[in-house]
């Protein structure tokens, strides 16, 4: 097959640039312009199209006239639209339903902004985009096959939805039943592919014209990037991608300009009332989950806490508050508060109540954690959900002051209102709270180390030792903990000094297992470009959902130190089955394993190091003796510093 003449690309791009410039609201980013000096200067958007451009709008570039498709493919225009939004990567698993735009991206678009990343599973692609955003603050685009590919992607989209992370998902589909190829392409088509994920995306659309696509893509990006962030979905018709552009008489294709929407801020009257309650509290407590969207959010939260000398519980949805700060506290402190301020909480009810899965007749028991009379304040951009099917909004919790607004955007106003509400009469109580907090923080720090010392030399390796051996090798680097998604795996948060926003990226959001590996690699991709060192504690069960993402990391030279939390079982589920057996007074059948039948990952043991090696990683293991861990980490860190991914298959204690 003959390769295309580069001049063809240039002429096609001229055409589209001209077409866009003629639009009423066009604005192409520099990335969307040809990278060659041969390009004619762009006309200002306010001017009418030149004769040359006007001719191009209705004519066909000479080279393309020789092609089978008589004209400029619609997907070339789509690429121009995409390029205005500064999207750096496109992780995707290839599929026929988006072959038109795929070809345009890599040939017309030069495979730059976005660069196509070869993925082996749609769940991996969305997971990578999820992790990337949390490290870079910028969304990625992913393409997927409209039916089976989207079915693969759906769990990862749900995680992103629950975690308030924007991902631009575009699914290929072939709507025209009379013209689409019979057989598999028809089996893989649907009337409405978006229906599959509509319950857990912020918005979706099915463009039926190129101008419709331009509007919808920019709108989708805007909606995804307005807090609360979330994934969006576009269905992309195969015919629209592949057919030549046929503008209607007098129509000029244009690309709407993207202008970010300012995050919603809470009502000023409610902010003042919240400040009044906080100023008058004897023991205010702040609880934050996804409050700090940026590093500035952390700074604001520190200001607020110091102003009140209020203790802060960081639930870890994001890196909200430095764990070295004396005001950082554990969740138990909620019980002592008389005013609780919740910032972007996933579960306010669960924050102030307890549920014990050990009641009569197999039903759990609820109990309140709060003292009577405790006042509750909420600032949340997602407290009033717009969807009802999936129950990620948790139980309903009544609060005294409920603010619909983005916490980070509202904090400056709350800080100012609080300064106005505080008087000299409050200062003595504030000072005493600070003194008590310093003492409690020092005690908690010592207690964490005492507990970490227990089973220090155990084999399999204790999880406390695992994280501290690792820390010894990365502490002098600009590190970012991009994954530690095992339930109950809290040692990094208890033992590592975490002070920067990128040092902890939060968890999956939807608890959909299989997030850890792709999200870590996506975040590591962002950190690679930002000059940071990425480290993850990779659970064994999580890795086996879609281990092909390891190949993607090696293929695209994404440096990541993955230290395995290989506990050889699905331990959360193991305990659920054990619990059921105990409630029913039956001896639990563990077969030949160490956990109930169906929950162990052993017999045979998976050789994760060999799995990783087979996909291009440097890897070592199994490491069961803690004394062998340090030297192996030294080698692995050197590999990662050289720009390659490295994995240590370390056998650990369960939690």
């Amino acid at each position, binding site marked *: 097959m003959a390769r295309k003449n580069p001049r063809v690309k240039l002429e096609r791009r001229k055409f589209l640039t001209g077409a866009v410039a003629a639009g009423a609201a066009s604005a192409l980013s520099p990335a969307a312009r040809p990278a060659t000096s041969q390009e004619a200067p762009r006309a200002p958007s306010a001017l009418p199209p030149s004769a040359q451009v006007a001719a191009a709008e209705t004519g066909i570039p000479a080279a393309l006239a020789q092609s089978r498709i008589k004209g400029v493919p619609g997907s070339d225009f789509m690429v121009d639209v995409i390029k205005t939004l500064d999207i750096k990567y496109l992780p995707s698993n290839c599929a026929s339903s988006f072959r038109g735009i795929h070809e345009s991206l890599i040939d017309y678009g030069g495979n730059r902004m976005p660069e196509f990343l070869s993925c082996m599973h749609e769940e991996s692609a969305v997971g990578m985009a999820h992790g990337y955003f949390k490290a870079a603050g910028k969304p990625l685009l992913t393409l997927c096959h409209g039916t089976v590919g989207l079915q693969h992607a759906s769990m990862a989209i749900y995680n992103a939805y629950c975690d308030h992370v924007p991902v631009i998902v575009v699914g290929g589909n072939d709507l025209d039943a009379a013209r689409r190829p019979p057989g598999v392409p028809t089996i893989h088509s649907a009337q409405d592919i978006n229906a599959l994920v509509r319950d857990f995306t912020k918005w979706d659309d099915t463009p039926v014209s190129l101008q419709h696509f331009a509007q919808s893509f920019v709108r989708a990006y805007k909606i995804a990037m307005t807090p609360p962030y979330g994934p969006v979905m576009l269905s992309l018709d195969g015919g629209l991608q592949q057919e030549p552009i046929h503008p209607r008489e007098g129509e000029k294709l244009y690309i709407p300009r993207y202008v970010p929407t300012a995050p919603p801020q809470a009502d000023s009257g409610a902010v003042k009332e919240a400040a009044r309650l906080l100023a008058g509290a004897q023991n205010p407590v702040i609880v934050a989950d996804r409050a700090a969207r940026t590093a500035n959010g952390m700074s604001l939260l520190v200001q607020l806490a110091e102003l009140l000398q209020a203790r802060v519980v960081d639930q870890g949805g994001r890196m909200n508050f430095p764990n070295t700060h004396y005001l950082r506290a554990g969740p138990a402190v909620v019980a002592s508060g008389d005013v609780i301020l919740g910032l972007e909480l996933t579960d306010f009810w669960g924050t102030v109540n307890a549920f014990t899965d050990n009641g009569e007749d197999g039903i759990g028991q609820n109990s309140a954690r709060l003292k009577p009379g405790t006042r509750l304040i909420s600032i949340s951009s997602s407290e009033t959900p717009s969807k009802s099917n999936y129950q990620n909004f948790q139980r309903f919790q009544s609060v005294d002051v409920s603010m619909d607004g983005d916490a980070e955007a509202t904090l400056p106003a709350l800080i100012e209102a609080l300064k106005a509400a505080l008087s000299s009469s409050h200062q003595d109580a504030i000072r005493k709270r600070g003194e008590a907090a310093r003492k409690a923080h020092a005690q908690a720090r010592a207690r964490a180390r005492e507990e970490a010392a227990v089973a220090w030399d155990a084999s399999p390796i204790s999880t406390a030792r695992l994280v501290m051996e690792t820390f010894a090798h990365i502490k002098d680097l600009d590190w970012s903990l991009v994954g530690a998604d095992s339930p109950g795996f809290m040692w990094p948060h208890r033992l590592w000094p975490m002070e920067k926003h990128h040092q902890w990226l939060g968890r999956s959001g939807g608890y959909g297992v299989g997030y850890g590996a792709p999200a870590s690699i996506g975040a590591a991709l962002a950190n690679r470009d930002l000059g940071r060192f990425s480290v993850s504690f990779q659970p064994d069960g999580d890795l086996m959902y879609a281990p092909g993402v390891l190949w993607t990391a090696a293929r695209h030279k994404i440096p990541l130190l993955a230290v395995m939390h290989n506990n050889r079982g699905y331990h959360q589920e193991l305990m659920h089955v054990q619990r059921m057996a*105990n409630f029913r007074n039956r001896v639990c059948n563990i077969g030949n394993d160490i956990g109930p039948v169906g929950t162990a990952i052993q017999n045979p043991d998976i050789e994760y190091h060999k799995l990783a090696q087979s996909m291009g990683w440097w890897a070592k293991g199994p490491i069961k003796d803690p004394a062998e861990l340090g030297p192996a980490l030294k080698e692995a860190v050197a590999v990662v510093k050289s720009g390659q991914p490295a994995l240590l298959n370390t056998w650990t*204690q369960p939690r």
Partner: protein
Amino acid sequence: MRFAAFLLLLVALDAHAGSADDGKAAFIRHGCYECHGFAGQGGVGKRLAPEPMAFEAFSAIVRNSTNAMPPYQKAILSDADLASIYAYLRSIPKAPDYTSIPLLNQ
């Protein structure tokens, strides 16, 4: 009266008389390690060792827990296994002082 007291003493001694080796196996077989770690160091569950709580309190919690841990009644965890598990926990040596571990003082 003296004979009854002697019997009670024997029962109490018996409760502590399990084998640490048997106890380690039972600790795994009954899933205790899952939340408490193979060495009873704790994790999701509370730390059990070294220096476990008094047997009577330990036994009461295991048999009748209403907290996060599900109760283990005699039908699924015999008195002998319970005693052995306790013996195993008692056999676990004291942890080093964390200040003597350089990695915990970084």
